[in-house]
C-alpha cells in the first residue's frame, strides 16, 4: 500500500450515513429475485419448501403472489433470473444465444422450480380462500379474460364481489391461450389455473365482445376493469403487400388461428419477420405445421434481438436459421402469388447515444424464396370501442391516460391493467397490475383513498439454532445450474401440442434448490456489540465485509477490499465503532453463508430471515404469506 492513501484520506469529503434497516425496502432489495419479481413472490421461501418436499405449500405461496404458478413455471418472462445473486457468482460454459462470445451467468433456475411446485403438489382445494355466499353488493365488470382480469377476479371474489367477465373469444386465458403455443404451455395447465378462479363463482360471458364503453358505463357496475390486452399486430406496407395478401399473415392473428384449429397447415417455405418472442413462437409453430424451410429474418444485429436467450436457443435447436441485419424491402409476386421476399442487408456503423447499434443500408439485396410470410414485428394497443366523447383522457400516443399508482383512468371507476394499460408486457406484469387494480377497486367501492396504498407486511427473525447451526441450509453448493430435460426433437416437431420442456423431476429439483443462496436470510449487524476483531472480515469468502474509515459513498465504494462497482447493489453501513471506523458491507455477492455470524465472538452479526409480503385486496388470499411472516 502506498502513502498516497494518506493524502486521499486528508481529502476526505464526506460521510455515508448508517443504513436504515428499519426501512423494509432495504432488506427487500437484498433479496434480488423477490425484488425483481413484479408481484414480489417470496422466492427463497418457496425454494426451501420445495427442498423439504412441501410442494403444496410451495405452490400456495406462489399462487397467492402470482396466481398462475403452473403457467408461469413454464412461460414466465422470469425477470427474477437475471437479477438472481447466484448469477453474479457463477458463470457457466454455455454461450449466450445473442452473443456466443459471452458465457451465460448461471442464476438459480427459479422458474423451473416454480413448475416443480405445480407439478408435484397434492390436492390444494381445501387450501383456497373461502368465497362468501353472501355478496357485498358491489358489481364489477371485467373486460377481457386474460391474466390481468383473472388476477382482479381472484383478488376480489373472496371479498364478496359480484363479478362479470366479458370475453370476445369462446374460451378464457387471453394471449396465454391464443398466442403462447401449447408446446410451451399445455392447455390442461391453463385450464386448471384459469378454471380455479372462474370456479370461485365468476359470471362469464364468452363470445361477448364489448363494442362500446359508453354502453358499458350505463350498465350500473360499481367499477369496470379493462383487461383487453394489446390486441393489434403491426403490419408492413411494402411493395407487393396487397397482391400477396393471401400468403402474408400477422403473427399474433395467425397464432390465434392455429390455437383455435382454424389453420392447420402452411406453405413449404416460410419466412418469419421479427426478432422478438412472437417471431420465435411463429417459426416453431410453422415448423410443426409441416413447413420444410423456415427462416427468421431480423432487421438489427443478433446482439440486440428482443427475444429471450432461451427462446432463441430453442428455435436454433430446432434447426431454424436466424438471419440478422436483414431489412425487408418487398414481397415478390409472380402470377398473383407470393414467391419470395427481398431484403436489403444492413451494416452497423457504430452505436447511438443509448448504446444501440446504428445501422446503414448496404445496398446489397437478398431474395429469399417463400410461400408464406409471418409478420411478428410488434403489437400496439387499439381501443376502437372506447368512445372519444365520454370524458376519457387520451395521451399523446392516442392511448387512455392511466394513473401508474392507482391504475384508474380519467373516468372514475374505470380501471386498466395488463397490456391494455401501457402496451405489451408479459403475464407476470399483468398479474401485478391486477393486484394493484383490485386494491384500488376495493378502495373505490368503499370510498377509501386510492392514493394511500396498504403497507407490505415484513418480519425479521434470527435463524440461529445452535453455535454453528442455522435453520437454513447455509452451505454453499458449487454445483452448476441444472439443465431441464426436453422431449426428443423428432417427436416434438411432429406434434404441435407436445410439450417440449419436460420440467425437473424431484431429483433434479433437489439438486437445484441447494444452489439458492437464501438471500432473504439477512446479515444483521449491531454496531455496539462489535469489538473489531476482524474475524468476520477475514472469514467472509467473498470479501463483503470491511472495517474502514467513513467517507462519502463513491469513495467508500472504491476503498473496499474489493471495490463495490455494482451500483445497483447497496452498501450496508454501520454507525461509528469504538475505533471511529465503520463497518461497510457490499451486499453484491454475499453468499448468505452465515460464516460472519459464526465467527463473530460477540453476536454482532446475526443471520435473520426477512419475510416480506406485498399487501393485497383480500387478506384471505394471503393466508400462506401470513404463516410465512409469523414463522
Amino acid at each position, binding site marked *: 500500500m502506498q*502513502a498516497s492513501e494518506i493524502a486521499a484520506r486528508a481529502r476526505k469529503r464526506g460521510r455515508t450515513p448508517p443504513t436504515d434497516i428499519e426501512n423494509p425496502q432495504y432488506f427487500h432489495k437484498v433479496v434480488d429475485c423477490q425484488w425483481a419479481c413484479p408481484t414480489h413472490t417470496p422466492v427463497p421461501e418457496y425454494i426451501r419448501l420445495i427442498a423439504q418436499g412441501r410442494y403444496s405449500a410451495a405452490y400456495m405461496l406462489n399462487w397467492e403472489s402470482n396466481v398462475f404458478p403452473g403457467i408461469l413455471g413454464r412461460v414466465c418472462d422470469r425477470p427474477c433470473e437475471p437479477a438472481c445473486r447466484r448469477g453474479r457468482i457463477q458463470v457457466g460454459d454455455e454461450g449466450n444465444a445473442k452473443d456466443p462470445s459471452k458465457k451465460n451467468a448461471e442464476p438459480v433456475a427459479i422458474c423451473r422450480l416454480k413448475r416443480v411446485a405445480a407439478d408435484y403438489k397434492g390436492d390444494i382445494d381445501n387450501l383456497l380462500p373461502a368465497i362468501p355466499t353472501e355478496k357485498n353488493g358491489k358489481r364489477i365488470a371485467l373486460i377481457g379474460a386474460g391474466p390481468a382480469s383473472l388476477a382482479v377476479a381472484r383478488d376480489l371474489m373472496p371479498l364478496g364481489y359480484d363479478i362479470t367477465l366479458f370475453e370476445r373469444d369462446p374460451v378464457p386465458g387471453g394471449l396465454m391461450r391464443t398466442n403462447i403455443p401449447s408446446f410451451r404451455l399445455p392447455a390442461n395447465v391453463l385450464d386448471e389455473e384459469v378454471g380455479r378462479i372462474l370456479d370461485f363463482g365468476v359470471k362469464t360471458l364468452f363470445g361477448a365482445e364489448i363494442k362500446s364503453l359508453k354502453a358499458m358505463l350505463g350498465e350500473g357496475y360499481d367499477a369496470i376493469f379493462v383487461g383487453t390486452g394489446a390486441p393489434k399486430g403491426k403490419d408492413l406496407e411494402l411493395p407487393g403487400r396487397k397482391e400477396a395478401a393471401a400468403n402474408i399473415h400477422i403473427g399474433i392473428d395467425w397464432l390465434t388461428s392455429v390455437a383455435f384449429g382454424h389453420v392447420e397447415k402452411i406453405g413449404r417455405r416460410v419466412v418469419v419477420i421479427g426478432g422478438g418472442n412472437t417471431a420465435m413462437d411463429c417459426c416453431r409453430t410453422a415448423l410443426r405445421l409441416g413447413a420444410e424451410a423456415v427462416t427468421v429474418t431480423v432487421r438489427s444485429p443478433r446482439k440486440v434481438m428482443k427475444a429471450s436467450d432461451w427462446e432463441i436457443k430453442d428455435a436454433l435447436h430446432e434447426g431454424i436459421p436466424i438471419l440478422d441485419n436483414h431489412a425487408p424491402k418487398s414481397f415478390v409476386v409472380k402470377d398473383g402469388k407470393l414467391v419470395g421476399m427481398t431484403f436489403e442487408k444492413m451494416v452497423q456503423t457504430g452505436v447511438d447515444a443509448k448504446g444501440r447499434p446504428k445501422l446503414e443500408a448496404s445496398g446489397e439485396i437478398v431474395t429469399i424464396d417463400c410461400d408464406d410470410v409471418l409478420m411478428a414485428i410488434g403489437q400496439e394497443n387499439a381501443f376502437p370501442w372506447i368512445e372519444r366523447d365520454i370524458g376519457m383522457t387520451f395521451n399523446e400516443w392516442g392511448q387512455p391516460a392511466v394513473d401508474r399508482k392507482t391504475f384508474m383512468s380519467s373516468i372514475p371507476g374505470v380501471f386498466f391493467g395488463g397490456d391494455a394499460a401501457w402496451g405489451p408486457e408479459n403475464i407476470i406484469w399483468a398479474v401485478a397490475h391486477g393486484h394493484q387494480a383490485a386494491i384500488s377497486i376495493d378502495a373505490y367501492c368503499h370510498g377509501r383513498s386510492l392514493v394511500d396504498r396498504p403497507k407490505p407486511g415484513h418480519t425479521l427473525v434470527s435463524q440461529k439454532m445452535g453455535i454453528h447451526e442455522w435453520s437454513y441450509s447455509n452451505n454453499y453448493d458449487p454445483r452448476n445450474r441444472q439443465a431441464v430435460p426436453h422431449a426428443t426433437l423428432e417427436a416434438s416437431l411432429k406434434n404441435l401440442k407436445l410439450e417440449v420442456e419436460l420440467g425437473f423431476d424431484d431429483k433434479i429439483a433437489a439438486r437445484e434448490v441447494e444452489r439458492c443462496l437464501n438471500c432473504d436470510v439477512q446479515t444483521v449487524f449491531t454496531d455496539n456489540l462489535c469489538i473489531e476483531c476482524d474475524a468476520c472480515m477475514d472469514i467472509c469468502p467473498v470479501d463483503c465485509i470491511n472495517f474502514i474509515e467513513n467517507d462519502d459513498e463513491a469513495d467508500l465504494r472504491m476503498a473496499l477490499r474489493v471495490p463495490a462497482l455494482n451500483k445497483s447493489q447497496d452498501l450496508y453501513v454501520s454507525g461509528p465503532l469504538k475505533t471511529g471506523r465503520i463497518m461497510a458491507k457490499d451486499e453484491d455477492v454475499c453468499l448468505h453463508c452465515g460464516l460472519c455470524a459464526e465467527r463473530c465472538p460477540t453476536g454482532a452479526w446475526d443471520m435473520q430471515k426477512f419475510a416480506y409480503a406485498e399487501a393485497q385486496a383480500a387478506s384471505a388470499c394471503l393466508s400462506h404469506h401470513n404463516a410465512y411472516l409469523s414463522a
Partner: protein
Amino acid sequence: MSYIAKPSAHHPALPRNALGLTRRDYEGSMSTLCAGCGHDSITAAIIEACFEMDLPAHRIAKVSGIGCSSKAPTYFLSRSHGFNSVHGRMPSVTTGANMANRDLYYIGVSGDGDTASIGLGQFCHAVRRKLNMTYIVMNNGCYGLTKGQFSATNDKNSPSKKGEANPFDAIDLCQMAIQLGAGFVARSFSGDKRQLLPLIQAAISYKGFAFIDVVSPCVTFNNHPASTKSYEYVRMHNMASENKLDYVEPKEEITAEYDEGTSTSVELHDGSQLMLYKIGEGHDPRDADAAIHTIRTNAAKGTIVTGLLYVNEDQHDLHDVLGTDERPLNGLPMSELCPGSKALEGINARLR
C-alpha cells in the same frame, strides 16, 4: 468451529497477483480456533502478505510448536511445506530445515507459552545464531490451548479471568530479541492489520532473524476488562512508533511524498523498502539502546509500543557466518554431499 467449510466461491472481481493467484489461493483449511481469536487475524495478515508479495507457496516452509497459535499454520498456505513440531521446539526444527535448504522462506509461528516458557532456550539460540527466518509470536498472555493459565508474557498487573492475581513480572520478548542480536524486531497488534501487514512483508524480505511479537487477544480466556492483552486495553494503550508503515516492493516505485524530517526508509536485503512515516517524535529504529529505552519507559506507563522497534540493515545470517555452500543440500550432487571416506579422513586429520 464451523460445520461448513469456507465456500470455494470467491468475489468475481478479486484481484490477482503476478502469479495469477487470488488471496484465496493462499488460505489453509478453516480455523478451529474460537470465534474472534486474534490468531485468526494474524493468519489473515500472513495470507495477505504472501499474496501481495507474489510468493509461490512451494517456496515457503511454515513451522510451529504446540498451542492454539502453533495450530495456526494449518489455516494458511495449504500448499506450502510445513512442520508442526513439539512444544517449544519450533526453532530447532527450523534451524535444521534452514541449514538443509536455504532457498525457502521460513515462517515460524509460535505462542507466548511456546516461546517464553518451554521454548525460551530454543528461542534464544535461534536469535543468537541469526537464523534467516520470520519468527511470529501470537502473544495472548496465556496458554490458550490448555485453558488459559498465565504465560510468562502476562503482565504482573493483569489478573486472570476469574480475578486470580499474577505474581510474576512479564518477559518482554522484544527486549530479549534485541539484546540477543535479532536484526529485525517489531511489535504489533492482531487488531491493526494496517500496521501488521507491512511488518510481516518486511520481515519476510529481511535476511536474518526477523521477530514480530503480535499481541493477540484470547477472546475466551484473556479478553476480560482487567486484562492488559484484551482488545479494549490494547486499543487504548497502543503507542505506535510510526504514524504509518509502507512496505514497497523492489519492483514498485516510491510514489509517496517523503519528508526527510519525519520519515525514513529501511532498505531490506531484496531491495524492497519499509517506509516509516513520522518517526520524528519516536526513537531511531537503528539504535538498539534507544529501542530498549522506549519499550521500557512506555511499559512503565502501561503503554505498549508497537511498530518497527529495531532494525540492523547489515545483518549477516547463519549461512553467512558459517560460510556454507550457496546451494541447498538437495541441489548438491551426491559426490559433493558425501565426498567419501577419504575426505572424512582429511577432516579428522585436520582436527587431530
